[in-house]
Every structure is written in C-alpha cells, then in structure tokens.
C-alpha cells in the first residue's frame, strides 16, 4: 500500500543535468522502415553481456532470415540469428564497434536480396504458456536489454521470478540528448509494447508494471497511456526530464522510493527494469516467433543531412547507414555510438551496428565540448550534478597524483560514467576519461597482482615437488645401497657356507 502511494510524494531526484535535447529533428518524423538491404552484414558473436555465442553454421552455407547462426553458451549469454537471408561468407575477426576497433569474432553474411524469413512457428495464446516457457522463448529469440546495457532479458525474467519482484519498471525515459528511437517506437508501436509488457509480467509472475516516460515526450505518453488503458496492471507515468533519469537506479528510486544497495541487483529489492524496445522485441518473439534481427537506430548530429530514426538489420555497417542518411564526412568531427553523454567515439565507419546501438551520431566540431582544459576552480558543479553522490573533483585529483587506491576508497567503483561531471565542468576537465582510465588501471593492477600471486604459488609448489622428488630419489638410492649391501652380505654368507 505504501509503495503504491509513494509516487504521490516521490523522493527527490539527485544530481543530473538538463542537457540541450536536440531531439526535435528526429522525433517529429516516423521511423523509416525501407532501409535498403546491405550487400553484406557483419554480425558479432558477442552483442551482449556474458559469454560470446558459439557459431553452428559453416562458411558457404545458405541461411534464411531468422535462422540461428550461433547458440548461447552458459548461464549468461544470448544466441545470434541471421538478420536476412543469404550465404555465410566468413566467420573471422573483424573490427568491433568499440573505440579501439580491435577485432572480434563476427559472422559475415552476404545477403541474397530476398530477405526471406525462416518458416515461423504458429504461436498459440502465450498466456496459456508457463512463465518458464516465456523466459525460454525470450532467451531463444536472442533478446537482450536494448537500452544499451544488453543484459540477456531471459536471465532477468528468471531472476525476477525467483525473487518474487512486485514491480516491473519499463524504462521509457530516453534521457540521452539526440536519441529518439524509444520515443518514436512508443508513439508508433504502443499496442505492441504494452503487449510485450504484459508478456513480461506473465513471464516474471509479477502483478504491476510502471511505464515511466520523461515529460518531454508528451505524445509518447498519451499514446502509451491509451494503449494501456484496458490493463489496470500497467500504469503509465510521466517523470521529470533530467539526465540521467534513465539510469536504472535513479528511476527505481524515483518510481518506488527504494534505493538499490551497492553490490545488489535491483531484483533483490523487488524491482526489475526493462527498456521499451526490449518489450517490443519480446512481443515480436512471443506473438510472432521472430527473433531479434533488427532494431531502430537514431541517426543524428550536425553533420547528418537527413537525420532520422531508421530500422536496420543488425550487422549493417555504420558507413552504409551514414550514406543513407546523407552524412557529410567533411563536417564530421566525431562519430559517436549511443548518446552524446555516455556513448563511445568510434575511429571510423567500417564498424557494424549491434543490438546495443540505440543511435549513431555524426557530430560537428561546433557541437563538441571544448577540449581546452583549464585549472579546476572548485566550483563543485561536478558534485552537484553527480547522481551517484560522488566527488568527481577529489577523485580526479587523486588519479592525477596516481593515488588510485585513494580514488577507489572515495567511490571510483560507484561511478556509472554517466558523463554529467564532464558535461558541466566549466574548465573542460575530462573527468570521465580520468575515471575510465583509473578503473582500467586498477583492474589491470589487480590482474597483475593476481598473476604474480599465482606465479608465486606455482613456484612454491614446484619447489616442493622438486624437494619431494629429491627426497624420494635419496630414499630410493639409500634403499638401493641397503639392498646391495644386503645382497653382498647374503652372497658372502653363501660363499662362506659353500667353502
């Protein structure tokens, strides 16, 4: 009862920034669905948190759209399906959609232009299925969190069921500037999303769902509220527009008043959170048997001639996406995958889009934050905007002085890299860059330490083994000498007896 009332008096939102939204040019037009099928698709085997999928096709094999290409391995993993029909050209290492563009394992599919679906199974009434069965089907469809976290959805449904969660939150905040793919999907596919939410509730055996939409998306709110009006279990609410409202833990606190303890999953306090895009994918998988093979991506930024939301097959190269949207390469100062706050900058456009790709931005120099770093004036803006309650200025000072342990002590590991501090800093100090560097360095040092401990252990074990062997040899030698002496003595006795 109290939980139900807590929205009347929502706890305050901590930190955050009101970034310039720049969503208007893409949010006003419908999702483009006639993207020309690329000749080649590059499909990474790892598009999710957990273990990479294991390929089960051979080079040269012909596949149909939706056919399983690689199967899930282990508890936390997700399968990968063919985004279109065609021939498998290669299974090899290609540059990853990551700032490093280091090679990772991908399947290269040459499309045949027919885009022919696999024969899809007849789907009955899903509410007759057991909740476990829903999870299984969601898992088999390769669905992962499409907000960007890419955690396998089936695992989350299972955890929700095991923990008897009471509230499912559907994240329609879409707080990152520029991005409007969730907004458009909520406006155009509200019935399907609400159906997906009902299926998720069924899969988790949960009674209540809250769809939370930032109040800058009024059209999406009204459409979703209309679609949900027959389902009292689903409540659609508006939440304040303030980045990072879509951070799961911020949203959970705002909606339920509960705070997720450090080191816990939200399901442990009775809440699970899914993205609206994930709900849509769930609908497609359970109602139509279609695995996750495409997604809606926002292409925007000052260098984009025709900014839009476009549904593309997974594995489409960013270069082709940019060509379709009329990106001016000469104007482009930075390519960002994801939103401008948390997204990664990419070194070139020859990288594929994946399940996590909510947007691809081609930003001009004028849109970028200045890199002219000035001394910190201790204005404390970074403390004020930090949604996690950290002290970015102090952490950065420790890291600059190479006191990484001190930075960890004051909360480095609680940083969510939301970018608010970097965004607000008047001295253009790249705080998040420092934190990412330090986190990587701390992890590397721990690994090195772990390695040296292991080596020490092995050395000690080897030493003991050698000593044991030496001891054994010594004993054997002594035994041999003793036996020889014994033999000689016996021989001598015999000889004496004989003579």
């Amino acid at each position, binding site marked *: 009862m109290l939980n139900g009332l807590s929205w009347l008096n929502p706890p305050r939102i*901590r930190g955050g*920034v009101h970034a*310039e939204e720049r969503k208007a040019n893409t949010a006003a037009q419908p999702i483009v669905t006639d993207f020309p099928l690329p000749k080649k698709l590059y499909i990474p085997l790892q598009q999710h948190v957990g273990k990479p999928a294991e390929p089960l096709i051979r080079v040269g094999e012909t596949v149909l759209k939706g056919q399983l290409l690689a199967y899930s391995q282990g508890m936390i993993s997700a399968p990968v399906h063919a985004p279109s029909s065609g021939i498998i050209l290669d299974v090899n290492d290609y540059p990853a959609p990551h700032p*490093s563009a280091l090679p990772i394992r991908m399947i290269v599919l040459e499309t045949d232009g027919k885009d022919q679906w696999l024969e899809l199974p007849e789907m009955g009434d899903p509410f007759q299925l057991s909740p476990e069965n829903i999870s299984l089907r969601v898992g088999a469809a390769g669905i992962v969190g499409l907000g960007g976290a890419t955690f396998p959805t089936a695992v989350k449904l299972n955890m929700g069921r095991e923990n*008897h969660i009471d509230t499912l939150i559907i994240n329609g905040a879409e707080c990152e500037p520029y991005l409007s793919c969730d907004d458009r999907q909520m406006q155009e596919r509200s019935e399907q999303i609400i159906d997906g939410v009902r299926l998720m509730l069924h899969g988790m055996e949960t009674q209540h769902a809250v769809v939370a939409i930032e109040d800058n998306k009024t059209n999406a709110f009204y459409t979703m509220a209309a679609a949900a009006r027959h389902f009292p279990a689903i409540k659609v609410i508006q939440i304040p527009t303030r980045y990072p409202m879509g951070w799961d*833990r911020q949203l959970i606190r705002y909606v339920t008043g509960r705070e*997720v*303890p*450090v*080191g*816990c999953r939200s399901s442990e*306090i009775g809440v699970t959170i899914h993205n609206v895009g994930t709900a849509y994918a769930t609908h497609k998988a359970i109602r139509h048997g279609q695995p996750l093979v495409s997604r809606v991506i926002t292409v925007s930024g000052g260098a984009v001639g025709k900014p839009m939301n476009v549904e593309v097959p997974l594995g489409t190269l960013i*270069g082709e996406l940019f060509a379709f949207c009329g990106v001016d390469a000469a104007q*482009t100062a*930075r*390519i960002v995958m994801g939103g*401008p*706050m*948390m997204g*990664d*900058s*990419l*070194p*070139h*456009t020859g990288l594929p889009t994946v399940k996590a790709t909510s947007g691809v*931005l081609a*930003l001009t120099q004028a849109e*970028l*934050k*200045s*890199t002219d770093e*000035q*001394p*910190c*004036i*201790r204005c*404390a803006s970074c*403390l*004020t905007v*930090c949604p*996690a*309650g*950290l*002290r970015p*200025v102090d952490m950065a000072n420790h890291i600059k002085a190479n006191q990484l342990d001190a930075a960890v002590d004051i*909360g480095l590991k*609680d940083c969510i*890299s939301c*970018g*608010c501090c*970097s*965004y*607000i800093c*008047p*001295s*253009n100090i*790249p705080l*998040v*860059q420092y934190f*990412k560097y330090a986190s990587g360095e701390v992890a590397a040092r721990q690994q090195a330490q772990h390695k040296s401990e292991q080596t020490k252990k092995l050395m000690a074990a080897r030493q003991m083994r050698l000593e044991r062997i030496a001891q054994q040899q010594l004993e054997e030698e002594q035994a041999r000498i003793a036996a020889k002496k014994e033999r000689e003595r016996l021989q001598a006795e015999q000889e004496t007896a004989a003579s």
Partner: protein
Amino acid sequence: MITYHKPASGAHVGANKSVSQIMGQVMLAITPATAFGLVCFGWPAIFLFLITVTSAVLFEAFCIRLKGRPVKPVIMDGSALLTGWLLAMTLPPWAPWWIGVTGSGLAIILGKQVYGGLGQNLFNPAMLARVALLISFPIEMTTWANVSPLFFAHSPSFAESWQITFSGLQNLDAYTGATTLGYIKTEFSQNHILPDILQDYSALQNFIGWTRGSLGETSTLLLGLGGVWLIRQKIIQWQIPVSLLATVVVLSTTFHLLDSDHYVSPFLHLNSGSMLCVAFFIATDYVTSPNTSAGQCVFGAGCGLLIFVIRTWGAYPEGAGFAVLLMNSATPLIDYYIKPRIYGRDRQGKPLEIPKP
C-alpha cells in the same frame, strides 16, 4: 576511409559555461554597485579602481611569465581582473594609489600565485589583501571619504582628485568622517546608548548607498540585486549567502531584543559595512568555500557568527574580512567531514542493507 582522432569518452557535448563566462557574470553582477560607488566618491575612486584592477592583471601576467607559461590564456580567464575588482570594492574610496597596488600585489602574488595559481589558494585573495592592508596601514585603510559625487559643486575637481590619489591631500578631515559602524563603535566606548547614537541615522540612505564606506560596498540595494541575479543565473548557490545572513539576523535579533540600547538591530547589521558584498560575492568564492551544500551552510553560518562576534565585541567595527579568512581555513576540514552520501551506501560508505520484504 577517414579515421578520427584519439578516442574520447563522454560527455561529447557540454554545458556552455566556461570559466571566463562565470567570471564575466560575477563582474556583471557587481557592476551596478561599483558604478554607483564610483559616482558617489568621484575621481579619486575611479583612479583607485583603475589602478587596483590594472595592477592585479599586471601582477598576474608577471607571475605567469615567471612560470614560463603563455600569459594571454590565463589573463583571459578573468580571474585576476575579478580579484582586483573585488579588492577595489572593499578599499576606502580615497585611499592613495599605493594602497591599490600593494593590495593587488598581496592578493595576486601572496594570495593566489604562491599556492599554484587559480583554484589552488586556501584564502580568498581579495580578503587576504584587504586584511593585510588594514593591519599594516590602519590610517589609510580607515579614512572614509564623504559622499562627494562627480560634478557636484563641493566635490574635488579632477586636479584635486589627482592629488588625493597620487600625493595625498593635506586637510583630509574636511572631506572625511566615520562609517556608521565605526561611529557606533566609538560612541559605545564613550558609554553612549544606541537610541542617542543613531539619532541622525538614515536607513534609506544607507540602503541606497548614500553614505561613507568602502568603494563598492555602500549600496545594500544594488549589491542585493546583483547577488540575487547571480543566484538566479546559477553562478552561485543560495546556501552561503542565506546561511550567512540568516545567522547574523538571528543573533542580532536575539541580542537586540534583549538589550536594544547596546546591541544593533538586524536591519542595521544587514544595511551596513561589507555585509552583502561579503555574503554574495566574497564568501561564495568557489575556490575557498566548501563543496557540498551542507558544508556551505556550515561555512556561511560560521562566517555570519564571526562577523557578528567581531562587530559586537571585537576591536574592529567591521569583521567580515577576518571572518571569511578564518572560515576559509576551516574549509578543508568542513569538506573532510561533510561529504555527500554515495548512492546505495550509508554515510560511512558501507552498502545499504537489503530491506526486509
């Protein structure tokens, strides 16, 4: 294929509020009060203001040159200009030129650059310089000119003004007097009581700024407007000014109600000396005040308490400079003890407990 730069992490976009813009907005906020002071005290004040500000910038340039760094970008951040400006506002308007130069030197070199420059100093440079001047040159620092606006008949001419600033005027007594707070302090020492002392006091004149005082600190009205504007612009936060002023009001009200003959009313406290200038523009200095909202409240309250104590029982009629410096030295301590709570952790930094269902 085009390859782009080294990888950069988010945020890729940023708020368009740079250091120089922040400094610029603060300057804008103190412009009305300064301009009013310059008009009220005429040419000598204008000379002093220009000398103080220019020498602050030159001292900064000199220090940066010594460090072997490019001078222009550092000067362009506006911090030295602002320091000089704030210092000038707190000086007696007819002080000789060398007060301005010495003050700027103290502020920029001893107050800021020896610590390592912008953002590194422990004490507010302008207040450090002002207090050092007050202790070293008590006569010059407590000679308060009468209001003698530009182009008024009894005001000093340009030539006389030049003399006031650069060679000192002989019969200064004709042109000077005591500030309200100074007058009250002197009268108290002769065992007079407040109702008699304040017979000629005009709250309205003090509110507008038509009174003796520091160059840019006389107008409660204009300083207050500038300060509120700065809060609205989100350049400063409300915590320090509000806690500082509230502390003074609460203390002075209490004592005034107990004994209105010997304790000044809260209105007079707020309406005199450098109260509003310090509350809005000096104590709120980012570099020397605490980082958290709660810490800022403690800091502001501490400043208010010290101002009240020094004004009421101290040897000086005004204690804002001392109060700010003392609290500046407590800032690292405040920041050590008052920290924000990390999400999902308690105040000690331990993870929260999972609530029982």
